[in-house]
């Protein structure tokens, strides 16, 4: 076998939530039997932004905040790939917040996993937009509620790195959703930062697992929104598969599914090129 890049150990602090996310993602490719060479894992900048280095897929280290457009570009260019974007909450909600909004809106077939520790780990602990700021215990920004507010969103889920079984399931579901051409799959994983925001102890009592609620119908956007608003006002946060559109309102990735890109050798196109030129003869 041709030797390729050595898979090093992460340099995260012992106990960092990101270990669990990496493990779940890496294993998910195996569970779903996705050949590693068909997967492109893109990550942002942050402690979280190194996951791709620890898996044997194609990996790309994007700019801070730009992992989502990078991933969408890759997927539009080659729809045959399994494209997974990953990153932190600073990366995804602060500097990348605009792109997230538009990713929900345009619903491209990629999976996006955010490791939310409510802080900027790598730059040493500044507050991020999703932290439980001054809004009487409500998180300043809940990206899943933002997602619910947009008609284009099709998959919204939240896992907890401290609950690995559910994380595994949701990871599989998120990757499958996009691979199956059902659109943008958004998975937030609560992944505490032991060094700057160690709140592992809070999460078990904060998270309310909708997957355990028999009566919960994740295909009903309005109910999902109502529940999330109620939970937020109680200082709680929903976990599980919060919303999955039963049918997409329009095809994913924009107005029409792109044809796969079929090579650019000149001869096969020459005639059509000449036709375009004909339109400019004058």
């Amino acid at each position, binding site marked *: 076998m041709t030797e390729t890049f050595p898979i090093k150990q992460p340099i995260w602090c012992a106990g960092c939530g990101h270990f669990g996310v990496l493990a779940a993602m890496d294993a998910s490719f195996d569970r779903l039997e996705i050949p590693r060479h068909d997967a*492109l894992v893109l990550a942002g900048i942050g402690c979280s932004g190194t996951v791709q*280095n620890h898996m044997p897929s194609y990996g790309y*280290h*994007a700019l801070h905040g730009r992992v989502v457009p990078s991933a969408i570009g890759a997927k539009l260019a080659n729809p045959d790939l399994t494209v997974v974007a990953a990153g932190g909450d600073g990366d995804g909600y602060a500097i990348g917040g605009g792109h997230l909004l538009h990713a929900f809106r345009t619903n491209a077939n990629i999976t996006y996993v955010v490791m939310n520790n409510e802080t900027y780990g790598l730059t040493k602990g500044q507050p991020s937009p999703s932290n439980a700021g001054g809004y009487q215990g409500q998180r300043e920004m809940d990206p899943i509620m933002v997602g619910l507010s947009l008609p284009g969103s099709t998959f919204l889920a939240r896992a907890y790195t401290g609950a690995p079984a559910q994380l595994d399931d949701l990871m599989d579901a998120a990757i499958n959703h996009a691979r199956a051409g059902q659109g943008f799959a958004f998975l937030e994983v609560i992944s505490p930062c032991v060094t700057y925001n160690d709140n592992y102890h809070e999460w078990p009592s904060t998270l309310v697992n909708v997957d355990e609620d028999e009566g919960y119908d994740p295909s009903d956007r309005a109910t999902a929104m109502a529940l999330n608003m109620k939970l937020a006002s109680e200082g709680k946060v929903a976990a599980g598969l919060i919303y999955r559109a039963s049918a997409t309102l329009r095809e994913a990735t924009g107005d029409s599914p792109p044809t796969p890109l079929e090579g650019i050798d*000149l001869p096969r196109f020459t005639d059509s090129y000449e036709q375009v030129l004909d339109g400019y003869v004058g």
Partner: protein
Amino acid sequence: MEKENKVAEPIQIDDVNVLVSGQGGDGSLTVTNMLGSLLRARGMGVYTERDVLSRIKGGKAAASLRGSLNERFVVRDRLQLAVIMDEEGLHGVANRLGGDSVLLYDSSDAPIPEGLISDDVRVLVAPFGRLAVRRLGRILYKNSISTGVVARILSIPDEEVRTEFRARFKRLGGAIIDQNLKALDLGFEIAEGMELSSDTGVFRVDKGDIGERLLMTGNEAIGMGFVVGGGRFFAGYPITPATDVLEFLQRHLPTFGGVAWQGEDELASVNMAIGASLTGVRSGTGSSGPGIALMQEGIGQAGSGEVPLVVVDTQRAGPSTGMPTKPEQSDLNMVCFGGNGDFERIVLVPGDPEDCFWLTVDACNLAQKYQMPVFVVTDQAISQNTASVPRFDLDQVKIDVGKRLSEEDLKSLEKYQRYAITEDGVSPYSVPGTPGGQSLVTGNERDEFGNVTTLPGIRQKMADKRKLKLETAKDDLPKPREYGDESAEIGIVVVNAGWGAGMDAVDELKKLGVASRLHHPRTLWPLTDETRSFIDEKKRVYVIDHSSSAQLSGVLMHAGISSQKLHSIMRYDGTPLRPVDLAEEIYRRETEK
């Protein structure tokens, strides 16, 4: 103040420069288009220049046109004919009319203000607008009416005009054709009153023998170059005057299995293009100054991570939002030196639509072969003005994807390193989907495998490797082109619309007895040896700086050219470069010596 019409034999000309000015949206610019077609039909090359404001409706809108026996890419300062639809249009045109010029004026609303137009200009006046409304019921017909007079002024036979009208209005149906032909006849009638009969007007324009030509803007040519150069993914965000490229590609790329995507902003666009490029698909983005400024970080990422990326910068007058519809060449510093840290890039600066096509094809190849950002930088003038250019010979196009590894290639390797240090600095690459070629791409410093590192030794090697790529690319870089007297002592260096203006300036200087040689680098960064020797060999070199901080001169000096040799001629008032302006300035400086 209407003047008496002198009757005389038409003046024979082989170079006709016409300006039409009206209000945005009043259709007066179609006069230019019709005239363009008429001249094309007579075997001339045509060049059309628009001058509009960045607003939607209303406001002065002007277009000018040049017909010539060779391909020329500028409208000359001195006009043979100005067609002015209202008083506002008179201002700014007065100084472009002279002894052998004709002014055709629509007097519907106001007469020509006393003293504005020099006495030796031949002035023809008629109330086109009022006549259109009275006789044909719609003011729009003033354009067809005036076209009739214009044709007579230029001694274009009536029948040629009718044929052109029938062709042009064909798809609009019989009634419209008829009304416009009626308007045309009214125009001929008015011309008769001005003692201009068919085929014996004020001027008689030579017939040329320029055969089939494409009529294209630089933006369209860039779009076409991207498609033919194998570009299959383009992401952009609307911005004047760059939007046309995105729109061309949205229209044409899908036919070829490609995607042209309107991103939510320029940051998304450049990063989408980078993402697409990772898959091996030739990708690009484009914008004008403000958008390119926003893309600086992304472009550096392509430079650092060695990701192929074509970036089109359609320059407009800055700084900041500046003057969106006005020409300038003031992003040169940004494209050559913008972005953080040291990264390699190639900057191509085409000079006309044909050049736009070929340099964009080159950009697609260079970007992928050398895995770096390649800029195609134009200005508003060449991007939006229409020129007739030879049909592109697609047989000359070559596609070179560089060191791309197939599954088989990979198998034969002992190890595959995305950033392998090689003799030429270029690492073989594998793209997602290829078994066994898994690899890491990053904008951080990294080792050969792509793992992030800060070890000084490795860092140094990686930086050297990236520098080496630019050395290696040297022979592949588009070569400069020149015009004028090869043995002249005086050199003139230009980019973009400077090429068209410069050619005419060289001719003008020759008439004034000054021999000069025009040099268009085409590759601005890295500066080619040819450009260096050109400057070396000339005694004095004038640099046409379409910017207030002399950016082209700055780029040359940055590259090590001595300031002693360089003489900057600057323009930064938002108007196009004009050949006579340039020639006169050079002449002045030469004779002052």
